[in-house]
């Protein structure tokens, strides 16, 4: 059969290298290249990217050098030390613990939980939505009833109950508990787009080209809704920082001896702290605001990169 093609075309194996080079010269830039161009065109987003990545790396690495149990020991001598005193750049809290060190370890914990939660819940939600949307029929029906049931459960109450009945919980179990409840929104969003995409001819063309259905779902349809996935994941990361923080603030998140952004903001429960000892809660609050803002800037750039009509970056 190969002869059959060779016979009707002027191209032979000898031309392969030359033509490949020609084609590469004309190649369209890759997705990564487009995203990078888009970041370069948007200064605030570029700064946000460096701030977010730099900060996450800093707290992840920095926390490794801090001896948490020792740091969390109460030392009455340093009771509410003011910022910029010796050994306490950001001051100390009611237990005489350094706010700076608590902030580093707390950020590590909170961001770690948010990252873990985003990875687990988004992966699960995306798979659920893709499979449900592509197969339709009874599979879709069954999967959507499970979804409806999960949506019906009062989320915050269930988390609080689970946290109370699990005897020794830590950051990992907390992440898993959150993950049970945070995949639904993503899955519905992905399903609706999958329904539209799987009706398009290219999915049918892949099927007649002999491609396996699972491969069509994850290699053909998923890349086509990648813009939605990227944006949804980025924004839900920003949201997920708030999830742990909110629950810790209420006292049902991480145990109190484990520092987190939520437990630090919980210092603001005390009116005295709000007025006199502002340094106990303000850094954590500012950090959350800055992080969430920066992440949403990044999300916007990614969305623009995915949609050719909104692009601002120029190809070089």
């Amino acid at each position, binding site marked *: 059969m190969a002869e059959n093609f060779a016979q009707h075309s002027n191209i032979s194996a000898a031309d392969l290298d030359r033509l490949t080079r020609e084609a590469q010269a004309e190649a369209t830039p890759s997705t990564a290249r487009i995203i990078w161009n888009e970041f370069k065109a948007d200064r605030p987003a570029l700064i946000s990217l460096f701030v977010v990545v730099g900060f996450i790396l800093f707290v992840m690495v920095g926390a490794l050098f801090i001896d948490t149990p020792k740091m969390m020991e109460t030392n009455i001598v340093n009771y509410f030390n003011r910022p910029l005193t010796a050994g306490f750049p950001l001051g100390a809290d009611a237990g005489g613990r350094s706010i700076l060190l608590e902030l580093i370890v707390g950020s590590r914990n909170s961001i770690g939980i948010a990252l873990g939660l985003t990875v687990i819940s988004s992966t699960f939600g995306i798979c659920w939505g893709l499979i449900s949307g592509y197969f339709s029929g009874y599979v879709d029906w069954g999967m959507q009833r499970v979804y409806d049931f999960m949506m019906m459960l009062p989320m915050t109450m269930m988390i609080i109950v689970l946290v109370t009945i699990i005897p020794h919980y830590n950051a990992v179990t907390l992440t898993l508990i959150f993950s049970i409840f945070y995949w639904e929104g993503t899955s519905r969003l992905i399903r609706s787009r999958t329904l539209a995409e799987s009706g398009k001819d290219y999915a049918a063309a892949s099927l007649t*080209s002999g491609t396996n259905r699972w491969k069509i779902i994850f290699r053909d349809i998923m890349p086509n809704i990648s813009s939605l996935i990227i944006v949804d994941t980025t924004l839900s990361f920003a949201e997920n920082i708030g999830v742990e923080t909110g629950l810790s603030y209420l006292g049902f998140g991480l145990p109190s001896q484990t520092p987190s952004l939520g437990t630090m903001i919980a210092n603001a429960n005390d009116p005295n702290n709000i007025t006199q000892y502002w340094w106990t809660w303000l850094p954590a609050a500012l950090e959350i605001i800055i992080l969430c803002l920066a992440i949403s800037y990044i999300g916007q750039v990614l969305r623009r990169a995915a949609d050719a009509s909104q692009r601002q970056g120029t190809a070089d």
Partner: protein
Amino acid sequence: MSLIEIKDLKVHYPIRSGFWNRVTDSVKAVDGITFNIEAGETYGLVGESGSGKSTTGKSVVGLEKVTSGSILYQGKDITQRRNRQLLDYNRDVQMIFQDSLSSLNPRKRIEDIIAEPLRNFEHLTKDQEKLRVLQLLDIVGLDADALYKYPHQFSGGQRQRIGVARAVATNPKLIIADEPVSALDLSVQAQVLNFMKKIQRDFGISYLFISHDLGVVRHMCTNIAIMNRGRLVEVGTRDDIYNHPLHIYTKRLLAAIPDVNVSERAAHRAMRQKVEQIYQSNRHDYYDDTGEAYPLVQVSPTHSVALPPELAHQLLAQESEAQD
């Protein structure tokens, strides 16, 4: 033996309604059609929108779930998925889609699109595969620099060529062409049709050519079937259909072909009105009480029409009189 034999094919879609969501009725997209496609021929399937011609095409390529009936290929009924897999059916039967943009994955480069059937059905080395893709691009008249581009960077005609290149990649025996040129402008239509014919000669491919454009069908097809409301109303050679149409639906379709000759405008108009008048007054002769077409009766070795036998022969006699 024919390349592919379609026997009493039915595709019905259920209509659900009521509190219990029971099946109360069905839409008969394809309602019992039978025809054979011979090796190397172009078989035309013509009809108005919604007459079930695309559904027939999708059933033949295996994209549509068939309600009943059979499609025999190499003696096996390929309406069953297991048989399709056993035969590597889609290696031999491929499809060209109407909408060239949506039939090419916008996230894939042309090389990956054309190589997709090769990767699934033929296990070539990387260099052999790339060489084959380049040859295919050359056959459909595109340059090698298309290799690493994306579908949206091409014009409609070029995209349809890429769709043809993908369909030809595994050297299939039958290609279902579902209105391959109806989304293209006229000059590009001619280009695409001509190289489809060239490919047919070079590779000995059969086409099932689905179209509502009778001019295009006349250019491409040797045998033609006219489809109306899910049933075949007339089957015959090009000459049978264009010069000796018997069913009123065929006559109406033929009367609808636009003619640019201005000097005979009045005559054409009178002819169209005459056909329409016959349709309005004699409609009950051509369709049964429920408004469906009759079963096909053979009036000559190549020509069949969906009419009661007496009426068919009466019309045939009239037709031959008119010829003399």
